[in-house]
C-alpha cells in the first residue's frame, strides 16, 4: 500500500510541477498576475507530495518491505537502522528521488526568500525550476521508479553495498546534491533574465547569494567525498580523478568562476552576458555529472548500475534543458548591454583572469575525462586517462590563478596603480618566496613541488592578513566588517590552508608494507607500533577480524589502533576498515592486509604517515563557512528589514 501511495504522490507532484512550470512562465510572458501567483503555492504543493513519496520509501526501508524491489536490492534486515535510512539514496532510483526532493526544497527556499524581488522575475525563476522538476519526475516515473514491486517478496534483501555502510555515506551525497541542485537556481535566474530581456546589476545582486550558497554546499560535498574515500577505501588515497569525481569537480570550478563573475556583474554591471552563460554552463555540468554516473558511458568506481536506456532518457533531458537554454542564450545575447570600463590593472581584470583560468581548467578536466570516449566512438581504439595526466595538466593551469588570488582581492575596482600594489605586497611576496624556498630544507627531502605549494599558500595567507590589517586599526573593529568581506577572505584563506595540506601530503607522505608477527614492532615517523595480534568479532551484518596495534613514542604508550577486516554476511564482500589516528599535523593510518600464516598470527600490515592531511579538510571547512557568511551579507537581507520597518520602527542599523 505504502509504495503505491508513494507512486501516487509522485504523480501528483509531477502534475503540480507542470502547473508550476507552465502557468507562471506564461503569466510572466503575458503580464498576467494571477497566473504568476500560482508559482509559490505550486512549489509548496510539489514539495509536500515529493516529501510524502520520499517518506513512503523511507518507511519501506525501515520496515524491511522486500516486496519493493529497491529495498530488496539495497537493504538487509540486519542492516543498522541509519544505514537503512541512507540506503534510500544509495541506488539509482532512490538517489533520483532524493535529487528531486532537494530540487523542490531549493524551490521552496526561493519561493520563501524572494519577497523583495519583482513578481515577474520570481515567477520565471520558479517556473524554470518547475520545468527541471518535470524532467526529473518524469524520469523517475517512467524509467526509474523506486516503488516497483515484486510478488512474492524475497525473504531477505541483498544488503547495501558495504562501501556505502559508512558515516560518509550519511552526509556526502546530501551535501553534494544540495550543491548540484543549488546551481539549478542560478541557472533558473539566468534563464529568467534571458526570457525577460532584463539583465542588470540588480539581477546579479539577486542571483549572487543563491549561487554562493550552492557553491558552499558543493565545496562541502566534494570535500566530504574525498574525506570519505580516504577513511573508507583503506589505501590512503583521497582523490583519483575518476570520471564521477571529475563530474563533481567541474561544476565546482565553473561555480567558482560564476561567483567571481557575479561579483563584477553586481558591483560594476560588467560581464553580464558572460555571467549568464556561466550560470547555464555550471548547471549543465551538474546535469552532465548525472548523465555520466548513470549511463555507463564512462567506466567509474562510482557508477550506478549501467543502463543505456536510462542514459538515453537523461541525454534527451539534457538536450532539452542545456540545448534549450544555450539556444535561448544565442538568440537573446545581442540584447544585453555591456557594462562598465576598467583598465588592465584592476579588480575586474583580475576577476576576469580568474574566470579565464577556471574555465580553462574545466575545459582541461572535461577533455581528459571524455577523451577515452572520443577515441572509442571514432573507432580509434581504447585509451585510459588517469591521475598522472590530470596532475600533470591541472597544476600548471591552476598555479597562476593561485598566485593572482593574492593580488586580486587587494586591488581597487576600475583601476589601480602598479607601484601602489607593489608597495603593499612586496614584503608578503618576499616572505612567501623565502618560505617556499627555505622551509623544505627543514623537511624530509627538498622537493620542488613543495617549494611551489608552500610558497603559494604562504603568499595567499599573508595577503589575507594584509587585507585585514589595512581595513581595521584595532581588533574590536573586526566584528563591524561586513560578512561579505569576512566570507571572501575566509574562503581564500581556506584555500591556502587546503593547498598547504595537499602540498605536504603529496610530497612527504610515507608508506610501509611490513609483515608483523604478534609482538613485532615497526617504526614510522618517530612512532613505534607494536602488533598485538588479532581477534574475531561480530557486527550487526558482518563478521570481523580486528587487529590491535599499540602506538608509542619515546617509550610511552600513546594510543591504540584497531585495523580490521570485515566479511559481510549477505554479500560475502570483504572490506578493509583502516584505523586512523588523526591530529592537526598528521594522520597515522594502519591497514590490515592478508594473514600470512594459518594460525593468523602473522599479518601483512600497511602503515601510512600522512602529514598535514587534515589541513585539506580544514581548508574546505573555512571555504564553506566563508561561502555561507558571504551569502548572508547584510545587503542581501536588507529587503527583509525593509519589510519589517514598514510595520514598526526598528533600531537604526549602522552602515558597515
Amino acid at each position, binding site marked *: 500500500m505504502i509504495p503505491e501511495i508513494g507512486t501516487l504522490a509522485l504523480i501528483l507532484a509531477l502534475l503540480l510541477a507542470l502547473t508550476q512550470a507552465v502557468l507562471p512562465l506564461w503569466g510572466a510572458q503575458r503580464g498576467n498576475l494571477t497566473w504568476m501567483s500560482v508559482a509559490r503555492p505550486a512549489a509548496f504543493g510539489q514539495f509536500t507530495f515529493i516529501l510524502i513519496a520520499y517518506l513512503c520509501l523511507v518507511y519501506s526501508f525501515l520496515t524491511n518491505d522486500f516486496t519493493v524491489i529497491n529495498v530488496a536490492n539495497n537493504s538487509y534486515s540486519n542492516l543498522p537502522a541509519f544505514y537503512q535510512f541512507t540506503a534510500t539514496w544509495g541506488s539509482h532510483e532512490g538517489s533520483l528521488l532524493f535529487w528531486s526532493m532537494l530540487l523542490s526544497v531549493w524551490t521552496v527556499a526561493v519561493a520563501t526568500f524572494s519577497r523583495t524581488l519583482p513578481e515577474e522575475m520570481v515567477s520565471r525563476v520558479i517556473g524554470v525550476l518547475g520545468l527541471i522538476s518535470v524532467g526529473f519526475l518524469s524520469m523517475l516515473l517512467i524509467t526509474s521508479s523506486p516503488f516497483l514491486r515484486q510478488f512474492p517478496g524475497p525473504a531477505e534483501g541483498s544488503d547495501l553495498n558495504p562501501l556505502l555502510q559508512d558515516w560518509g555515506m550519511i552526509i556526502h551525497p546530501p551535501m553534494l546534491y544540495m550543491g548540484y541542485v543549488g546551481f539549478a537556481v542560478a541557472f533558473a535566474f539566468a534563464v529568467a533574465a534571458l526570457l525577460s530581456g532584463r539583465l542588470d546589476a540588480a539581477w546579479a545582486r539577486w542571483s549572487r547569494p543563491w549561487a554562493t550558497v550552492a557553491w558552499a554546499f558543493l565545496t562541502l560535498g566534494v570535500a566530504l567525498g574525498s574525506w570519505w574515500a580516504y577513511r573508507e577505501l583503506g589505501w590512503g588515497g583521497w582523490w583519483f580523478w575518476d570520471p564521477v569525481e571529475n563530474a563533481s569537480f567541474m561544476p565546482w570550478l565553473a561555480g567558482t568562476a560564476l561567483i567571481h563573475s557575479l561579483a563584477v556583474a553586481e558591483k560594476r554591471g560588467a560581464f553580464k552576458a558572460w555571467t549568464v552563460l556561466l550560470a547555464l554552463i555550471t548547471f549543465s555540468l551538474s546535469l552532465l555529472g548525472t548523465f555520466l554516473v548513470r549511463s555507463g558511458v564512462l567506466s567509474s*568506481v562510482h557508477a550506478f548500475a549501467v543502463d543505456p536506456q536510462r542514459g538515453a532518457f537523461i541525454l534527451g533531458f539534457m538536450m532539452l534543458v542545456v540545448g534549450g537554454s544555450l539556444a535561448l542564450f544565442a538568440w537573446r545575447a545581442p540584447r544585453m548591454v555591456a557594462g562598465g*570600463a576598467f583598465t588592465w590593472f584592476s579588480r575586474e*581584470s583580475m576577476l576576469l*583572469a580568474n574566470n579565464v583560468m577556471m574555465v*580553462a581548467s574545466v575545459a582541461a578536466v572535461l577533455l581528459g575525462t571524455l577523451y577515452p570516449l572520443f577515441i572509442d566512438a571514432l573507432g580509434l581504439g581504447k585509451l585510459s586517462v588517469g*591521475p598522472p595526466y590530470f596532475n600533470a595538466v591541472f597544476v600548471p593551469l591552476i598555479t597562476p590563478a593561485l598566485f593572482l588570488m593574492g593580488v586580486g582581492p587587494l586591488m581597487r575596482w576600475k583601476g589601480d596603480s602598479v607601484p601602489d600594489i607593489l608597495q603593499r605586497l612586496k614584503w608578503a611576496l618576499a616572505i612567501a618566496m623565502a618560505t617556499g624556498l627555505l622551509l623544505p630544507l627543514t623537511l624530509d627531502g627538498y622537493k620542488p613541488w613543495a617549494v611551489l605549494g608552500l610558497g603559494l599558500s604562504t603568499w595567499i595567507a599573508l595577503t589575507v*592578513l594584509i587585507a585585514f590589517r589595512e581595513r581595521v586599526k584595532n581588533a574590536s573593529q573586526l566584528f563591524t566588517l561586513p560578512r561579505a568581506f569576512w566570507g571572501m577572505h575566509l574562503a581564500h584563506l581556506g584555500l591556502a590552508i587546503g593547498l598547504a595540506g595537499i602540498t605536504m601530503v603529496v610530497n612527504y607522505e610515507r608508506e610501509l608494507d611490513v609483515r608483523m608477527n604478534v609482538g613485532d614492532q615497526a617504526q614510522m615517523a618517530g612512532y613505534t607500533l607494536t602488533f598485538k595480534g588479532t581477534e574475531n568479532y561480530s557486527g550487526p551484518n558482518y563478521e570481523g577480524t580486528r587487529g590491535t596495534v599499540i602506538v608509542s613514542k619515546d617509550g610511552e604508550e600513546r594510543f591504540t589502533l584497531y585495523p580490521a577486516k570485515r566479511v559481510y554476511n549477505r554479500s560475502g564482500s570483504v572490506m578493509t576498515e583502516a584505523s586512523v589516528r588523526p591530529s592537526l599535523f598528521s594522520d597515522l593510518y594502519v591497514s590490515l592486509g592478508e594473514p600470512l600464516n594459518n594460525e593468523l598470527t602473522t599479518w601483512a600490515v600497511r602503515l601510512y604517515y600522512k602529514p598535514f592531511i587534515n589541513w585539506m579538510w580544514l581548508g574546505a571547512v573555512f571555504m564553506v563557512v566563508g561561502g555561507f557568511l558571504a551569502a548572508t551579507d547584510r545587503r542581501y537581507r536588507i529587503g527583509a528589514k525593509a519589510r519589517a520597518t514598514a510595520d514598526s520602527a526598528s533600531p537604526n542599523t549602522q552602515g558597515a
Partner: protein
Amino acid sequence: MTAPILKRCGYATVLALSLHLSAGANEPTQAVPTAPTAQPLFADAAIESRLMLLSRELRCVVCQNEALSESPAELAGDMRKEIRELMKAGKTDQEVLDFLTSRYGDFVLFRPPFKPLTYLLWIGPFVFLGFGVLIWFMALRARRTFKSAPVSSEQIAAAARLLEEKP
C-alpha cells in the same frame, strides 16, 4: 614601517616552526627496542618502492577504473607479481611498461603516451589557457576605450530621490 614587517615575519616564522616541528619528526629518539622488529613484507625495498610508483601509473584491467596499486582483484595481484619478477630480472621501468602495453594495449596506461592520437589531449589544456589569455587581452583592450551608456538628467534625479528615502 617596521612594525607591520616584523609582524609578518612573525607570522611566517610561526608557520615555519610549526611545520618543522610536526613534519620534521623523522628522527626517533632512540629507545632500545625490546621487541623484534617487523620485517618488510617484500625483501627488496628498492624494487617495492619502484613497484609502488609504477603501479600507480597502470590501470587494473578488470576493475572499474582503479589503479594497479590499490586494486584488490586477483588478476591485479598477478600483474603486480609479474612486475616484481621483471624488475628482479633487471628490467627498467620503461621495459616493464612496454611489456604490459604489448599485451594489453595503451589501455593499461593511466598516462596516455604522447603520440599523434593524443596530441590534442596533451596540448589541448595549454591551448585552452593560451586562448583564454588571448580573450583576456582582447576584452581589456575593448574595455579601456569603452564608454558606458549615457545617463539622462531624469535618471540622475530619480537616483537622488532613491538615496533620500529611508532604508
